[in-house]
Each structure stands twice: as C-alpha cells, then as structure tokens.
C-alpha cells in the first residue's frame, strides 16, 4: 500500500514538475500559447509512443533496444504505402503498418523465448535487422502521408457546437496519444494478461510456478511494445509527411523517460502515465532552452545532463529504498 502511494507520489510529482515547466515557458515567452503547446505535443508524440512501448516491455521484465529501428520500419512502410494513395487505401495502409508493428514486436519476443538468448542481445541483433529492413524499403527519406492522418495530430481540438476557445488549446497530438494509449493498454491492464505481464516482470520463476504461461506472456508484451513502436513510426510520418529510414534518437530517450517515469528496470513495477509525463517534462525542457535561444548543441548537452542527473538521482533513491 505504501508503495502504491509512493509510486503515485512519483507520478504526481512529475505532473507538478511539468506544470511548473510550462509556467516557466510562459514566463520566458509571454505569448506562448496554443500554437506552442501544439508544436510541443507534435514533437513529443513519437518520443511518447516509443516510451510507452518501451515501458510495457520493461514492466514485463525485458528491454527492447530495437524500438527506434522498428519505428523507422513503420515510418517508411507507411510512407511508401500511402504515397499517392486514396484516403481509403491510406486506412488500409495504417492497419497494415500496425499489424506489421505487432508482428515485429512478436518476432522479437518469440526469438527471445525460443532461442533463450537474453533480451538485450536479441533486440540488439534485431536493431540491426530492422535498421536494414527500413533501408531496404526506402534508402532515403521519402514517400508520403495521407492528409487526414496528418490532420489527426495537427492543431487544436474542435468539437461541433462547442466554442473553439474552450477546447482549442488542447493539442490534438495529446488527445491522439491519450486515445491510442488508453484504447490499447486499458483493456490489457484490466485483463488477466495485464496481471501476467506484471507477474513475469516481477518474478518470472514464481509466475511460472503459479501457472502463468511465461513465454506467451512475454511475446504478448513485446508485441504490444511493437504496436506502440509502429504508432510512433507513423507519428513521425504524420509529423513530417515523409518516411524516415534512419532511426531517430528514440532509444535512449525512451529508456530515460521510462526510468524517470517510475518504471523499475528489471520489471514488475510502474505504470504508463509516469513515463508519458516524463517525456513531456524532457521535451518541455528542450523547448525552453530553444526559446531562451541557447545554442542547440549546448541545449543537447543540458538536456542530456538533466536526463542523466535525474536517472542518477532516481537510482540513488531506489538504492536507499532497498537498503531501508
């Protein structure tokens, strides 16, 4: 019970930190408003989806180093399929990409289960494989994206009959993120599969002895991770309108956000809200530095230092917690 409060306390703390940072942004740039939030949400979206996918896998006691590479595969596949396609075809393309994501994740998981090689090694190898696949599909940025898909994450929310001022500030990117995460994760978390994912992350051998099908659960967790990676890849294409075959810096960022979000590496503990908030915290810091017209390279140093410092602080706290 106390742990529950502690975990939630961490998430609440992150929420407060995010609010403070947004307030600071307003102080730095007094006209920061709807459009600023919108660009923040769009920049954060791929990071957030990668982080959610990573978080699910980490909760299940694994890690997926190939998340950024899977995003690249999804991005280029979507962009190639949608290039010049009609809206209807684009829907099919999106479905195909999501299915591809599930399959890639499931393949990662299945290889871990079947070969009995550790997750780090398998997903490191698959990182090369998916990078290669992305390059084979499209060896330079290109392709296209359906306009309606791009509109899904651009601008504010408008509801018929409700004045735009009431809802217009809420970025569609945030709504999109919330919707897909809830749609995929909530049914899982409520079901026995969710329990089993936490169970194998917490203590795989105890889970096995309790009758949990450990292998199948692990594959399911990686498949869900792959699905989110595919969504992340699509969101890259949605944001830029083209497919990106070179994986972005999502691996480190997602691991850092997962840790910052209170998910224990090693599994069994934490949720998805914390990591998502962590992504926005990190993105907001980066945006604030840009608004302060800091040299982007210096901004990268500062951002990295913050990430590392937070992770170090979290690790010290975790060690203290274990010791007490």
């Amino acid at each position, binding site marked *: 019970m106390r742990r529950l409060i502690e975990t939630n306390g961490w998430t609440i703390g992150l929420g407060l930190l995010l609010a403070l940072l947004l307030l600071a942004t307003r102080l730095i740039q007094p006209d920061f408003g709807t459009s600023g939030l919108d660009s923040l949400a769009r920049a954060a979206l791929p990071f957030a989806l990668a982080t959610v996918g990573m978080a699910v896998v980490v909760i299940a006691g694994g890690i997926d180093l190939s998340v950024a590479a899977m995003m690249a595969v999804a991005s280029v596949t979507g962009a190639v399929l949608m290039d010049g396609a009609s809206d209807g075809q684009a829907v099919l393309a999106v479905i195909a990409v999501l299915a591809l994501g599930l399959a890639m994740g499931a393949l990662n998981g299945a290889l871990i289960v079947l070969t009995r090689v550790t997750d780090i090694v*398998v997903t490191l190898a698959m990182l090369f494989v998916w*990078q290669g696949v*992305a*390059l084979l599909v499209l060896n330079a940025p290109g392709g296209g994206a359906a306009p309606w898909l791009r509109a899904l994450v651009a601008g504010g929310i408008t509801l018929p009959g409700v004045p735009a001022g009431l809802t217009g500030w809420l970025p569609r990117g945030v709504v999109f993120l919330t919707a897909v995460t809830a749609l995929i994760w909530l049914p899982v978390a409520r079901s026995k599969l969710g329990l089993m994912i936490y169970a194998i992350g917490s203590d795989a051998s105890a889970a096995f002895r309790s009758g949990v099908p450990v292998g199948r659960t692990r594959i399911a967790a990686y498949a869900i991770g792959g699905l989110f990676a595919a969504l992340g890849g699509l969101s890259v294409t949605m944001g830029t309108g083209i497919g990106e075959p070179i994986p972005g810096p999502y691996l480190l960022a997602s691991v850092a956000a997962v840790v910052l979000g209170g998910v224990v590496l090693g599994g069994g503990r934490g949720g998805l809200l914390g990591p998502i908030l962590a992504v926005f915290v990190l993105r907001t810091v980066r945006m604030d530095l840009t608004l302060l017209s800091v040299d982007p390279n*210096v901004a*990268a140093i500062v951002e990295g230092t913050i*990430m590392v410092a937070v992770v170090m602080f979290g690790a010290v706290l975790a060690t203290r917690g274990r010791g007490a």
Partner: protein
Amino acid sequence: MTTMTASPLGRLGRLMVDNPLVPLILLLGALIGILALLNPAILSMFWAGNTIKIAIPLAMLAACQTLTMLTGGIDLSVGTVATIAAFVTATLAPLTGVPAAVALALGCAVIVGLANGFGIAICRVHPLIMTLGTALIATGCLLVYQRHVIATGVLIPDVLIWLGTGRSYGLPNSLALFLPFAILIIWAQRRSGFGRLLYAIGANEAAARMSGVRVWQVQFTLYSLSSIIAGVTGLLYLGQIKTASLSLALPLDLPSVAAAVVGGTSIFGGRGGFGGTIVGALILTVMTTMLTLLQMPEGGRRILFGLIILAVTALLVRLTDRS
C-alpha cells in the same frame, strides 16, 4: 548429483562452454573458406594483414565491452570516447604539440570514464543508461568544441599514422600496440585480483560484497579503465583513418558489443573472456569483407549482420544449457 555418465553431446557442449575458442575459430575458418570460394584471388598475406589491421581497433573497443560485460555491465560510450580522443588530438596538435594534445585527449577520455564510474558505482545507475547518457552529453560537448577550433586546422601525428597504417614484415604496425595489450588483458582476467573480481561481481554481486569486495571501487576503476582503452583506440583509429571527423569511431560502437557477444562473453556477467572477443572481432571483420564482396546493399548487410549475431549467440546458449 548422483552419477556422471557423460553423453557425447553433453561432453561436446561442456567442452565448448569451457573453451568457446574452439567453435569460434572453426566459425572463423568456415567464413574464410566461404570467402575463398567466392573470390579465391582475395586470400593473400596482404589481405590477412589488412583484416588484422581493421580488426584491431574493433577488438580494442570490444575489450571495453568484455571487461564491463564480465561484471554484468556494458559501456556504450566507447565509440564517442574514441572519437573525442581522436578529434581533440588532431585539432590540438597544431596548437600545443603532439604530446600535450595526446595527454589532453586522454584526459577527456578519463573525464568521461570518471563520470561513468560515478554514475554506475556510486549512484548505481544501470550501465547501459549511464553510458548512453554520458555519450550523448559528450557528443554535445564535442559539437560545441568543434565550433571553436574549426579554424586551427588539423594535424595527425606521424607516430599515429605509422602505427595505424604502417607495416613491418608484412604485418601491420598496430600489432606492436595490440599484442602487449591483448596479453596483458588475457593475463589480468584470470591471474590478477582485479580480473577475478570482475568475474565475481558479474556472477553474484551480493556474494562479492559479502566476501569483503567494495564493489564501487572495482566499478569505478573498471569504467575509468574502459574509457582510457577507448581513448587509446581512438588515437590508433585516427592514425588508421587519417581524417578527424565528428563521427569517426561511432560506427564501431555496436559492433564492439557484437564482437564481445559473438566471442562468448555473457552479457549478464561472470562468463567469457578477451580471447574469445579477439576471435569475435576477426569474425565480424571477415564478415564485413564478405558482404562488401557480395555487393550487398547496406540494408541487407545490416540484416545479415544482426541475424548472424543472433544465431551464434543462440547456438552458444544452447550449448551452455546442456550442462
């Protein structure tokens, strides 16, 4: 257990676990054989020397991975550290002279190592995250540094060029650096207290602690050592490539992990050694040659690369499980 009736397969498995060099060398031989079938003309002393020359920086970076992986860690900052050491040396040499430039470059490497050591040993951050993080920060610092020194010009010390590209008696000069290095590491991993402690921490950190080992001392030393090795590798690589670029050794980052893994070092710690890693680095180098020869597109090359790493490790795991 009760009786030891060794089945032939079990005995073979145990042999391979206790001595992974045998299957690795067989694999290397097989790869060279395939290469000979593909293009018989390629096999020559020159080619062999060249392969060794290319494999040496990889093997040295993979030494960092081997040593850290023995404790259950990993060092993903080695490519960045090597790049920084190379870039700093090349850009400072015209200003300060070669010895001072090299000293400053290695100083930069040590700073990264100390940062890694601090995070991992004192704060107990997972090595994968810590070293990725310091690599990110260090890259940022390098970019900022580069803006300020771009005007000074670049000088690559002759010593490094001799070491990196020169040959004596048909063999690359870099062996003069690598052979003592390899002998030292292989000796130290079994016959020095520090080496034994690496295995002990990787096999069971709590047990090591209870036996009186102050684990943080070992880890701090280890990650500093790893960065120094990476820095020296960067200097060697600078002499080999002969250009100072901002992404010089970065492509070696993941292959260095792969070389250690293929060489039979367990990424969870407690098993493996540098001997296997050297063969692993040679295997990866020969493989790259083979793929270039086959004119495989970059994408296909990476896929094959990944699958081979996976297959080799899966095979070794199968064999170790048989015991």
